[in-house]
């Protein structure tokens, strides 16, 4: 069978030599976040200066490597020079010259561009010592930020396609499935279904045309792990897909990527073209009998297309609406054929499992959730960004160690985990090992791994309203419970934050939430009530405060704010009256002013304008 497989080791040696010849490698993050912060200009500037560089290091040459996302997006643009053991943060184009002159040429680090630890207030040099990275275990994201994502050579140097080579050499699809099963890998897209099982179900229909579909329709607000993999290490994904194709007997695949990810689409296209051209994908891969073609399908931005059956409908050119299961895609999927559909992060784990073995993978994590998981850490923590930790890491470690604690010394209140379909976790869950089953039991879910940290200034009812508004807008409109149920839950939540809620609303919304959870057609509807149910469970008092006392304990809900002017402090300067957009402030010069509460829209403009801090909100 394996007529003449290429020698992958010698290929690797070749590219490693080539990379060594690059000299001093300056890794500049060119992920979407850093690009937005101007990294392309930084790269240009480095290149411009790099031509004349005669570094004081052992290297006689400098190579600027635009890499994928490093994860620490809020500190972008990130510049890492591994050989000099340094990570620069918040680099602007104006700083480049100083880095080159001072550090690269003269060996003197630029201190002001180093990360400052929020706790110790000390400068930190190395990546590994930055608290954000210290507790992470980066396997899926291992190469993101280390290699030039648009170069197959750089990918090969970090063992890309070695796992596929191994699989083709052994030529035993069944063994591949067994290995994945043994690893305990579960779907990273939200459901947590055992990946090996899914592969086995699809492989059972081997014989005719089968497809592999990669779900890259990452829609949860704030989540960007799939994007980072596609942008930072596309070959890892492509290799995972090819291995999956080999295991289930498919020769064609689709990657469904949101059109809002132009960089990911670009890098995938570059990667596919290069891999096909050099025989790592396409016909007779690496000299074997196995052929595998990958297409890219751009999604049009519907959240629901992340649901696998809606995604399949969308690839087929139909309206992206979920189809009832059964039949499952494994039996009847894309174009009516058996289809394996996995998410980006799941597939990105495959090659490492094949290379390092199922035991290595299952040594990480908890009993029923193995390996690592990426989370998009956002909200009121000091360090935000993309992180990867072993399953079972506690919320406390993520928020207080990796995240560096709550911003501005505020108090931790809750996290929303799993995106709009997830749920709220509170202080009592801080030491809960986070894995699929524990989170479900707590009324939340891993989901795609969005993690929004909230402090004491967050109104929990408003949070529930926000997410309900999202799911309502993104419901495909097919099934009644989701379409009409989310609308009516939203209406009730809107009433409550407006201060017009009634106590019976709490019973109605809970009953409705349960019926929507039970009765909806697809995962979107089944999980849409989670934010309501979990906040009702842990923060019922806050709902009651809104309804009974007409008070928003966090002081967020505008409808319940009262803005008043302290007559003792007001000097009658009239500034506030001139600022008020609705003319709600009356008063004469040098006399205390007064706010007409019927006219006031609670915008707070007057408070900001008052030079005497006489205007207060309660």
């Amino acid at each position: 069978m394996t007529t003449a497989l290429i020698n992958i080791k010698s290929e690797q040696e070749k590219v490693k030599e080539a990379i060594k010849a690059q000299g001093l490698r300056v890794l500049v993050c060119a992920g979407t976040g850093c690009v937005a912060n101007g990294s392309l200009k930084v790269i240009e500037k480095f290149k411009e200066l790099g031509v004349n560089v005669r570094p004081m290091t052992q290297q006689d040459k400098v190579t600027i490597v635009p890499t994928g996302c490093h994860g620490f997006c809020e500190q972008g643009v990130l510049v890492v020079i591994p050989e000099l053991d340094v990570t620069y943060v918040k680099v602007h184009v104006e700083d480049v010259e100083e880095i080159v002159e001072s550090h690269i040429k003269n060996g003197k680090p630029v201190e002001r561009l180093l990360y400052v630890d929020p706790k110790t207030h000390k400068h930190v040099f190395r990546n590994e010592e930055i608290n954000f990275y210290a507790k992470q275990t980066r396997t899926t994201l291992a190469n993101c930020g280390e290699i030039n994502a648009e170069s197959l050579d750089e990918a090969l140097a970090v063992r890309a396609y070695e796992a596929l080579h191994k699989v083709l050499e052994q030529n035993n699809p069944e063994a591949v499935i067994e290995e994945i099963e043994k690893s305990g890998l579960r779907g990273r897209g939200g459901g947590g279904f055992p990946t090996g099982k899914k592969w086995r179900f699809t492989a059972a229909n081997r014989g005719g045309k089968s497809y592999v579909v990669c779900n890259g329709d990452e829609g949860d607000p704030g989540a960007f792990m799939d994007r980072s993999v596609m942008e930072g290490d596309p070959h890892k994904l492509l290799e995972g897909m090819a291995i999956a194709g080999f295991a289930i007997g498919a020769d064609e695949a689709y990657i469904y990527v949101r059109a809002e990810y132009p960089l990911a689409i670009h890098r995938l296209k570059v990667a596919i073209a290069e891999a096909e051209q050099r025989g790592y994908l396409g016909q007779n891969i690496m000299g074997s009998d196995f052929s595998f073609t990958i297409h890219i399908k751009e999604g049009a931005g519907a959240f629901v297309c992340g649901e696998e059956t809606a995604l399949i409908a969308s690839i087929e050119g139909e309206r992206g609406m979920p189809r009832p299961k059964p039949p499952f895609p494994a039996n009847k999927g894309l174009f009516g054929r058996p289809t394996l559909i996995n998410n980006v992060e799941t597939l990105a784990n495959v090659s490492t499992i094949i290379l390092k073995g199922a035991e290595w993978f299952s040594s990480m994590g908890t009993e029923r959730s193995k390996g690592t998981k990426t989370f998009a850490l956002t909200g009121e923590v000091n360090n935000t960004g993309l992180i990867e930790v072993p399953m079972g890491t506690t919320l406390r470690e993520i928020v207080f160690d990796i995240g560096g604690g709550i911003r501005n010394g505020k108090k931790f209140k809750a996290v929303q985990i799993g995106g709009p379909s997830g749920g709220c976790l509170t202080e009592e869950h801080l030491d809960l090992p986070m894995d699929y089953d524990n989170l479900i039991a707590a009324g939340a879910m891993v989901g795609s791994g969005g993690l929004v940290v909230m402090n004491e200034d967050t109104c929990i009812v408003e949070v529930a309203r926000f997410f309900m508004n999202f799911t309502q807008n993104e419901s495909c409109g097919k099934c009644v419970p989701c379409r009409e149920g989310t609308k009516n839950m939203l209406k009730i939540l809107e009433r409550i934050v407006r201060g017009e809620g009634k106590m019976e609303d709490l019973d109605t919304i809970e009953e409705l939430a349960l019926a929507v959870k039970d009765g909806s057609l697809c995962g979107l509807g089944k999980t849409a009530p989670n934010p309501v149910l979990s906040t009702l469970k842990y923060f019922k008092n806050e709902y009651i405060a809104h309804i009974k006392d007409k008070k928003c304990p966090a002081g967020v809900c505008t409808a319940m704010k009262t803005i008043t002017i302290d007559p003792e402090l007001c000097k009658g300067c009239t500034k506030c009256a001139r600022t008020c957009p609705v003319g709600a402030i009356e008063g004469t010069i040098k006399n205390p002013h007064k706010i007409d509460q019927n006219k006031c829209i609670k915008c707070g403009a007057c408070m900001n304008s008052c030079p005497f801090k006489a205007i207060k909100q309660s």
Partner: protein
Amino acid sequence: MNDVNTKKLTVNGKEVEFTNEPNLLEVIKKAGFSVPTFCYRPDLTQYGACRMCVVEIEGRGIQSSCTMPPEAGLIVHTNTARVRRIRKTVLELLLANHDRECTTCEKSGSCELQQYAEEYGIKNLKYAQKAEKDYLPIDDTNPVLIRDPNKCILCGACVRACAEFQGHAVLGFANRGSKTLVQPMAGKHLSDVDCVFCGQCQAVCPTGALTINSEVEKAWKMINNPDKKVVVQMAPSVRVALGEVFGLKPGENVIGKIYAALREIGVDLVFDTNFSADLTIMEEANEFVQRLTKGENLPLFTSCCPAWVRYLETQHPDMLNHLSSCKSPQGMLSPVLKELLPKTFPGYTKDNIVVLSIMPCTAKKVEAKRVELMKDGKFETDIVLTTKEFGRMIKSAGIDFAALEPQKADSPFGGYSGAGTIFGASGGVAEAAVRTAYNMVTDEELTSLDIKPMRGVDKNSRSKQATLDIKGIPVTVRVVSTLKEAEKCIQEIKKGTAEFQILEVMACPGGCVNGGGQPTSCNDSSIKEERAEGLYLEDANLQVRCSHKNPDIQRLYKEHLDKPGSHLAHQLLHTTYSDKKKGSYKDFSGCV
């Protein structure tokens, strides 16, 4: 019993056997239980959107039974607290977003939402009700269909019917979330898209979101006008469906009662479209023999179905030469009545005759308004009522339909053959035509008049083909129902792979028995089969079973028309077609 294909599952503690039922819902029905549903229609793909048919399956949780494949050993509960909570919530949510002006709704009494709301005792409307500002305009631009988005529950049955039956997708979904709507492409009016007026969307609609533009009042006005002579014709398939409105069995032939009811209502003369179906066969069989002899414009397309004619005129105007120039049976009888009645019936003039036609069809209403079917500035057919509208008319007249003594049609345009009667089922026209064409070519009669391969109106019989030997000449007949199937035939012709000489097309699945104007039958696909059986039963029992042997037809040719294809026959019975341009129906000459 011991068939290996027979498996068992349990519904509410009762064991039930199943073999090839397409879904759990059908097995539940077989067990003697019913589950409510809005979006499940046996002849359409399963959709699973309304969530009314949810059941609880042990070990599997909640599943929609319409989409769940039956499996041996399943333990199913159809009526648990959990499923009742879901169904009740669905109903409450739908009602909150529904125009609840039931009393004036066309569907009142036959609305499935109304029925389930009553069954589930929905009294407490706990959700915020649809606000005045959220009401959307009603689209009444289409000549036969009225679309009221405020009554739409988005079950998608119409969308599927249009796409799956007619391959046409005139209706589709727009927007997301609670803003989702069913609407014609790009938000156009129903008059500005390629609707063929088949009415299937309306036939599968569970609520009043799609209804027929009723002409009942117009009919009463004519009947009550002493200066008008109202003469009536009714299509073959009306007689096997109207009884359902009055609690009689589908397929029961009530033609005698229809004649009687019409006279009770007060019309002047009662004829029968079956008669002109025979006339159509005489002309069409003759036309076919002519074309076959000359070898031109083959295959011949039948032209009885106005939705099909409309489809060709708008989508394939280059194929119009294939279409038979014969008017439809409705189109033939009206000018014959207006031309010939004044010659034999005193007091009848061209001007005072009003032809009232009762059809299983919504497209017939539009056919009647074709410019090509006008004479002396007037339409040949004046009013077209659907079976449903006619049923309502009888009810409002206070007639005990079931108790009526059967009567006979008036002479001389009421007698018909078995060939005329089977027009109502897909394949019937072709079968009838072959019976007569055989005689025209050979001067002999077919030994067996039953051409079984052309029969069948179920889901699997939408495309049928048979080859007959007419004295050494092989003639292949293709019979299709639904325009989706018709389109396949057109593509075959365009590719040059078509091997048939006659193409019979009916736009409604199964033919006129399942027409868009028939009483509701979308929840039970066997109803149309029973109706078709009723037609074939009458055919079998009639003395005369070939159009050319119908004595009334023979007399008509002898006294007036001379022979098929004659000059007068052409003047009265044939028509022309033209390119009606895609995307607009502004070209029909009048509004209903």
